């Protein structure tokens, strides 16, 4: 598209559409400047307090802007799109970013507080753009903004050798998958002459699945499969989750999952749905369906079975995240609006439970001043920190999918969407998913059992946990319970954003 293709670009419209992102980026610079310029001699506690306050205020302001100036339609060749659905996802991302900042409060792993919060906010800016674009150029740039910020966050604990190692593996695999994604994009561009998802879909409609198109599809799935940590592209996840400072791990496990799954679904369902070319996307199976089926099945099996043998809580969470990625692919496989609705509900509630579980670990680390990594370290926690233990119980049961917590309804909607409609995924895959959820209950309960039944080490005093962190964790746990007891609050919101009856 040449410049002449956009007669009369409205810069006011551009400004209005990117206002929330601008607000977050400005907040990042503000946090950086305030911390470096005015708080050099202040105590760590004051710096955390000011920085967290700025970050949360920025996130709240951006949410306010999203709803005060709601935008609709698309801008510049699909570069920016705005509709009620992107607004739902962006709100979730901003809330998760604020939670991450609050959970980092009083963390001891770094003294570079301004930089840490700024990088979190830059990553959030990247994610906000990522979910609001249907153009491969902007998708690629914002994906890289997100990824580069996450590599930095994973490496943030400079005194830990594990942190650097986890970040290195994350970086190397991430760089390779970005190259694969780009190669896929370049082939799609070569086939269709466009980098706009809608136009690509129009162009590949009615064409046979040529080898070049097949390679492009596989490459694209590889690139996004890495971002969502699906087998066989999951190798970075356990090391990054274990090595990263715990609040960074919480961020990697929650927000980036939400953004990546949304853009994955967008690319697959908007951009490549007509892959095999037998009519409109709602009455034919796309050419990429077999690839996604294989990736989903492998993720479920390997993720859940590998989680059983883990002794580190964080690695356990990482492998269970791989399993959850397998379930969530069912939502894309359903190729229906119901599938997308179930996927978004699932990924948001999953992110809440995951950020909560990591948040508890972070709180324990700050309270004990030692790393809490192995499952036996948690023995008898319920007697030392009853509130945190109860929050952990809620998060783990939600991850396992026990009613009436949010995780149960997430699985319920997802599996029923995968079975419903003419485009349903294979039945055996849903059966496999249900069987694997039953297995996941075992390893989640193993941790919970240590917390409630295990004997604490002798002379373990009650822990001193920061009140901010405890309050944040209680709010997250409350959200998990409320969204489970009244799933319609969120499902209805997503559904009305998608104009579903």
């Amino acid at each position, binding site marked *: *598209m*040449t410049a002449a293709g956009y007669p009369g670009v409205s810069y006011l419209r551009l400004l209005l559409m990117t206002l929330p992102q601008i607000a977050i980026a400005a907040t990042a610079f503000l946090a950086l400047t305030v911390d470096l310029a005015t708080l050099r001699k202040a105590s760590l506690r004051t710096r955390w307090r000011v920085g967290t306050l700025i970050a949360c205020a920025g996130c709240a302001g951006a949410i306010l802007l999203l709803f005060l100036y709601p935008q609709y339609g698309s801008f510049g060749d699909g570069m920016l799109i705005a509709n009620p659905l992107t607004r739902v996802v962006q709100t979730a991302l901003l809330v998760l970013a604020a939670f991450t900042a609050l959970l980092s409060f009083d963390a001891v792993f770094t003294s570079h507080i301004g930089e840490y919060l700024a990088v979190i906010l830059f990553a959030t800016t990247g994610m906000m753009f990522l979910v609001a674009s249907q153009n*491969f*150029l902007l998708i*690629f*740039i914002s994906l*890289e903004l997100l990824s*580069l910020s996450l*590599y*930095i966050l994973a*490496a943030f604990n*400079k005194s830990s*050798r*594990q942190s*650097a*190692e*986890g*970040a*290195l*593996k994350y*970086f*190397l695999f991430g*760089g*390779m998958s*970005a*190259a*694969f994604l*780009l*190669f896929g*994009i*370049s*082939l799609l*561009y*070569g086939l269709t*002459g466009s*980098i706009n998802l809608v136009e690509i879909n129009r162009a590949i409609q009615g064409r046979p699945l040529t080898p070049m198109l097949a390679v492009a599809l596989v490459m694209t799935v590889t690139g996004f499969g890495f971002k969502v940590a699906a087998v066989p592209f999951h190798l970075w996840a*356990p*090391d990054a989750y*274990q*090595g990263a400072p715990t609040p960074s791990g919480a961020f990697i496990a929650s927000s980036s999952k939400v953004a990546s799954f949304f853009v994955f679904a967008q690319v697959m369902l908007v951009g490549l749905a007509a892959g095999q070319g037998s009519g409109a996307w709602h009455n034919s199976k796309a050419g990429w369906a077999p690839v996604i089926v294989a990736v989903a099945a492998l993720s479920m099996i390997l993720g859940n079975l*590998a989680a059983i043998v883990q002794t580190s809580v964080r690695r356990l969470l990482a492998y269970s995240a791989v399993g959850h990625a397998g379930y969530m692919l069912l939502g894309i496989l359903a190729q229906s609006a119901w599938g997308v609705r179930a996927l978004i509900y699932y990924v948001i509630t999953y992110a809440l439970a995951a950020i909560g579980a990591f948040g508890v670990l972070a709180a324990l680390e700050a309270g004990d001043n030692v790393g809490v990594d192995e499952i036996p370290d948690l023995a008898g926690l319920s007697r030392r920190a009853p509130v945190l233990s109860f929050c952990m119980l809620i998060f783990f049961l939600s991850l396992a999918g026990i009613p009436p917590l949010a995780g149960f309804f997430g699985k319920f909607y997802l599996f029923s969407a995968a079975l419903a409609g003419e485009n349903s995924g294979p039945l055996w895959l849903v059966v496999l998913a249900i069987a694997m959820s039953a297995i996941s209950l075992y390893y989640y309960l193993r941790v919970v059992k240590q917390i409630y039944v295990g004997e604490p080490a002798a002379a373990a005093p009650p822990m001193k946990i920061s009140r901010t962190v405890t309050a944040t964790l209680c709010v997250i746990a409350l959200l998990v319970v409320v969204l489970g007891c009244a799933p319609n609050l969120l499902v209805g919101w997503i559904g009305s954003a998608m104009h579903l009856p």
Partner: protein
Amino acid sequence: MTVPLAYYLVLSAVLFSIGVAAFLIRRNIITVFLAIELMLNAVNLAFVTFAHQWRIVNGQIFVFFVMVVAAAEAAVGLAIIITIFRARNTLNIDQVDLMKL
């Protein structure tokens, strides 16, 4: 005499494959990092070729963004590699093995 477009595409695919192979085979972290850059540049070649084929400029614009991102990636990547080197005085990827599956 003009070179057919397919030649450029084959060259791009070959470069990309060399990059993937080097990523998997080489043991020095810097070399592995260079392999990623090679893959990105192979993609750039493909983009320019396709842009020429379609006579649309956005493929060439894409290349500029890829180069900028590659530079940013180098900054972050080299910083991480320096951290690794400070911690253990080696750049052999086989010795970066605190955590195992």
